[in-house]
């Protein structure tokens, strides 16, 4: 956990879903408050500090997207959207509205927990931020990784398919170029311990990423293996200004 016990506000109009999410998150060490709609959400946020907001898109009255935009206008609190559909439009819209991540329903609760941890960690890192950590997209050697669209494009501009675990790991590398990262710390920075991952899975992910981005996966030059037991991302990384981001 990035914070010892984060305060999470869950906004969902379905009573059972709401309370089940709350119960699940509490059992995993979070403090959870719930709200039925926008009005309750605003009240809860003014009552006490909220570290992270879980927002359902389909809400009675003011919908999730509009709430998301309103919250973002006033604060930097991380937001994870729960969408009814995993459709592209909803996804981009959610992220354009300022959400930090999204999860289509029905979701795997463990996935939700992993995303919560990832978002909180990123948020914490952004507080002490360099230019790279605040950026929505980074470039290295002509490659471009876009955190909002969660996509990687090669120097030719072609999208490279990745699982979300691969993407998160590459993101972690990109945000820490030129630093030796142990498997241990990589696990912490990406999935988190409680997601039931093993150090070996980092090796598998690294080899899969290498296969996709390295000119010669057998002789890796971008993600180098460090003998003492870790990896280092060697290319120079630049932040992309928001005006240059986005696609056609």
């Amino acid at each position, binding site marked *: 956990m990035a914070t010892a016990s984060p305060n999470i506000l869950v906004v969902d109009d*379905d009573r*059972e*879903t709401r309370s*089940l*999410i709350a*119960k*699940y998150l509490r*059992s995993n060490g979070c403090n959870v408050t719930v709200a039925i709609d926008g009005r309750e959400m605003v009240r809860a946020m003014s009552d006490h500090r909220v570290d992270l907001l879980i927002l359902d898109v389909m809400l009675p009255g003011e919908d999730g997207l509009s709430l998301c935009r309103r919250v973002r206008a006033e604060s930097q609190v991380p937001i994870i959207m729960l969408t*009814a*559909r995993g*459709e*592209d*439009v909803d996804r981009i819209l959610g992220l354009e509205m300022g959400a930090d991540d999204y999860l289509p*329903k*029905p*979701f*795997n*609760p*463990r996935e939700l927990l992993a995303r919560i941890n990832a978002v909180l960690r990123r948020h914490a890192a952004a507080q002490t931020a360099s230019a790279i950590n605040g950026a929505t997209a980074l470039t290295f050697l002509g490659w471009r990784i876009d955190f909002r669209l969660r996509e990687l*494009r*090669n120097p*030719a*501009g*072609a*999208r*490279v*398919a*990745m*699982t979300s675990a691969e993407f998160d790991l590459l993101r972690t590398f990109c945000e820490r170029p030129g630093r030796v990262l142990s498997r241990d710390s990589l696990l912490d920075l990406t999935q988190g311990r409680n997601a039931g991952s093993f150090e070996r899975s980092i090796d598998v992910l690294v080899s*899969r990423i290498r*296969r*996709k981005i390295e000119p010669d*996966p057998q002789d890796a030059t971008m993600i180098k293996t460090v003998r003492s037991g870790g990896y280092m991302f060697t290319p120079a990384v630049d932040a992309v200004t928001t005006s240059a981001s986005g*696609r*056609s």
Partner: protein
Amino acid sequence: MKLVGFLNLRGISGQIAALVVASIVAIHLILTAIFFIHRPDQPDPSIDRGHNQLAALAQLLGTAPAAERPRLLVDIARAFPQMNVERLPPESAVAAADTDSPELRGLHRRLGSSYRIFSLVKGEDAGKIGIALPDGAMISAKLLQDSRQRPFWMGTWIVTLLFAVVSVTLLGLWAARALTAPLSSFAKAAEDFSLNGAAEPLPERGPEEIRSVAKALNRMRERITTLIDDRTKMLAAISHDLRTPITRMRLRAEFIEDDTHRSRMLRDLEQMRSMLEAVLSFLRNDRKLEAMTLVDIATTLQLVTDQFADMGHKVAYDGPEHAMATVRPDDLHRSVTNLVENAVRYGAEATIRLTVSPDTATIEVEDDGPGISDARKQIMLEPFVRGDDARNMDEASGFGLGLSIARTIALAHHGALSLNDRKPHGLIVRIQLPVRQQSRQSAA
């Protein structure tokens, strides 16, 4: 009533009748025109010219003094060699016979009564005509008759007949086309009918019968589209609403203490989820399309391979490390995932193969299962058809939408999907996609 209906010009029968009348009138007009152009009642001008020249020459000789005639004859022979005008010795008159042919009479009319005309029948002059000049001298000349001897196919009547045949044939063809074209377009429209509403409605024109058929077909199309739309909406709403209870169950399952129970429950829920996804994606495919973009499709295939390998299936990728193509990334991922899902369901091992040519990317998903008989291949591409109709639904089976969705996606990429046999047994599903799409694309 029948007769009135028959005479109704807007009906097919009326139009046919009108067509027949029109062609008869057209033929008559053509005949009349040809008749007036050729005027068989008037003397042929080309014949006239020969006769006139001969008459003029005869008058020239007749009025010239006898002493100058030899010189004139030489001049004439030089100027009109084809007439072959010569002096005729007086004794030739014996061999001459007055002939009553219409040509000679015409010539005689022009020359006047002081000239006498006869045809020569004897010796080398046979076939020529003789003209006695007013002073008794005689000349012989050839009367040009070639213009009368035209080839038979140039004959006025033959030309007319040909014209008539050609025009009636053309009219007939045109009419047949005009009448049947709407019918063939109906057939095409019925074949092309798809539920995405992209096809144009049938044009409501032509004869009355055809227009009413077009109207009826268009109405039927609207009704079918509405019906399907309603059902689609209903199915989408149901699938959509099922997500809430599945989400709850997913969460609840996390609190099940018994590991075996929990994992079974999670498996069932996962199956339900994937079935819902399949239905929603099937319903969506006709309507909303993801944006095309340049994708490294080799990585997409590697991703699918890895995902299935992580679930414990034997799946291998065989192809280049990188290959660019303009596709809809999520659709392609879903399509290949569906195919591999089928492959590992029916076979022990699956291979995803990629071959790229400058124009086409060919993705093959191969399994070593029982394969599909030729007779069932076409049916298998239909939605809601499963390979194992007889078997009970086990934990791995879905709605039978996988292949159908994959094919719809391939078609939406202007590509194709085909089912092929693998030796010695098994199935190869081949997707061929154009590497570049004609439509506008974004490179970055």
